[in-house]
């Protein structure tokens, strides 16, 4: 792939060569996301059977559970790219971490919001201080902190590195926070509400959930690639190739 003809992993670590690659891949991932979400939503609304105890209202978990998975997974991915950016000093890794944060925060918010919508008919309340809900809320705070820190620092290099240190500190803390909140809530109110105790799930329900999770995953990749392209253009605007790129489009 590189000019000498040999494939090199580092070829695409330069923003200039990654930009067109991201542009090529992005529509494919977006299309996959649309298809998978459409199939997943069809299964979850029309194929999956009605739950015996919760009725139709349970169907929101087809969005809620994949969103919660993605919210935690994206934080780990963000921490990974932050670490790579900090260790190898690659600008693109930090840009990817920056581009991941809003998507992660979005999924965290969706998970909280749909959780509240599900909790009202099922538990009879919008919000309980359950371990999962509380740690998800704190995860949202961590995402917001990461974005706020990067937004507050004008010097781009410093913003990248400071965000990376914060993301890594967060990655160490997320399991600690999760288990703290878990023990705290079991101490306080007993395991009155838990989703782990749900009876064995019908196969179609699980299938719908997995397809939705895959769809959300593809959406995350597509959204991150689109956002990283914007970040690249913004930060490399002083270079010749960006000027040529923009000139070619207008």
């Amino acid at each position: 792939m590189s000019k000498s003809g040999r494939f090199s992993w580092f070829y695409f670590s330069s923003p200039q060569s990654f930009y067109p690659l991201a542009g090529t891949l992005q529509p494919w991932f977006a299309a996959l996301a649309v298809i998978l979400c459409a199939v997943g939503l069809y299964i979850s609304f029309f194929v999956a059977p009605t739950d015996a105890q919760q009725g139709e209202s349970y169907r929101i978990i087809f969005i809620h559970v994949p969103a919660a998975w993605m919210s935690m997974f994206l934080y780990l991915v963000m921490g990974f790219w932050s670490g790579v950016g900090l260790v190898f000093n690659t600008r693109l890794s930090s840009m990817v971490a920056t581009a991941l944060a809003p998507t992660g925060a979005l999924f965290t918010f969706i998970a909280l919001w749909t959780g509240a919508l599900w909790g009202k008919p099922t538990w009879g309340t919008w919000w309980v201080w359950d371990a999962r809900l509380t740690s998800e809320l704190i995860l949202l705070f961590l995402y917001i902190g990461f974005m706020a820190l990067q937004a507050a620092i004008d010097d781009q290099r410093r913003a990248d590195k400071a965000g990376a240190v914060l993301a890594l500190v967060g990655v160490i803390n997320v399991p600690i926070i999760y288990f703290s909140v878990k023990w705290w809530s079991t101490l306080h109110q007993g395991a009155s509400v838990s989703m782990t105790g749900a009876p064995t799930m019908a196969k179609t329900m699980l299938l719908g959930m997995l397809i939705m999770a895959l769809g959300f995953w593809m959406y995350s990749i597509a959204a991150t690639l689109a956002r990283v392209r914007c970040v690249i253009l913004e930060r490399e605007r002083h270079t010749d190739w960006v000027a040529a790129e923009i000139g070619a489009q207008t």
Partner: protein
Amino acid sequence: MIRALGWVLRRDLLLAFRRRGDVVNALVFFVIVVSLFPLGVGPEASQLRNMAPGVLWVAALLACMLSLARLYAPDHQDGTLEQMLLAGEPLVVLVMGKVISHWLMSGLPLVLIAPLLGLQFDLPGDALAVLCVSLLIGTPVLSLIGAVGAALTLGVRGSGVLVALLVLPLYVPVLIFGAGSVGAVASGTGAEAHLMLLGGFLALSLVLAPWASAAALRIAME
């Protein structure tokens, strides 16, 4: 290395002693916040006893966080921090010295005055003792984690609010087990487990936080 640690400690304590107002202000803030709660929720003794651990711990979190602005910012402004980074001693040791002095000036006074405030909330004697022990183990963790946040936001605009946003979510485990230990005594289950977990947090943050704070300081001063 030990000499460098002692030097930073002595210097920071001397500076704090010359400007006693800063230390006293954080302490008064703690007392005022705690005293506001009975006014807000009513003076029934049983209710106050129930919420005392949480109120005292949240107030301690806030007081510790507010004093983080003093950790690096004055040294950053007068250029001392730059000289510290250039010094031959490992930066982690210097950070450690600053964290210890921060705890001595902001954490330890809270530990000492907490029993008095606990009495206002009608806490029994054994709960007061556990409150002191939990604060004694927990407040150093607050200083250590706070040092990371303070270094990350050094010289950034709006750093006062930003440091709250970064640091408070990370304080959650300490709050849970700090307040939980006092609550556990009240409910008769014993506080050992909570205090041991707090000790675990202290050990973990003692290893990781000075290192992360030093890394963040280097990034800030680049």
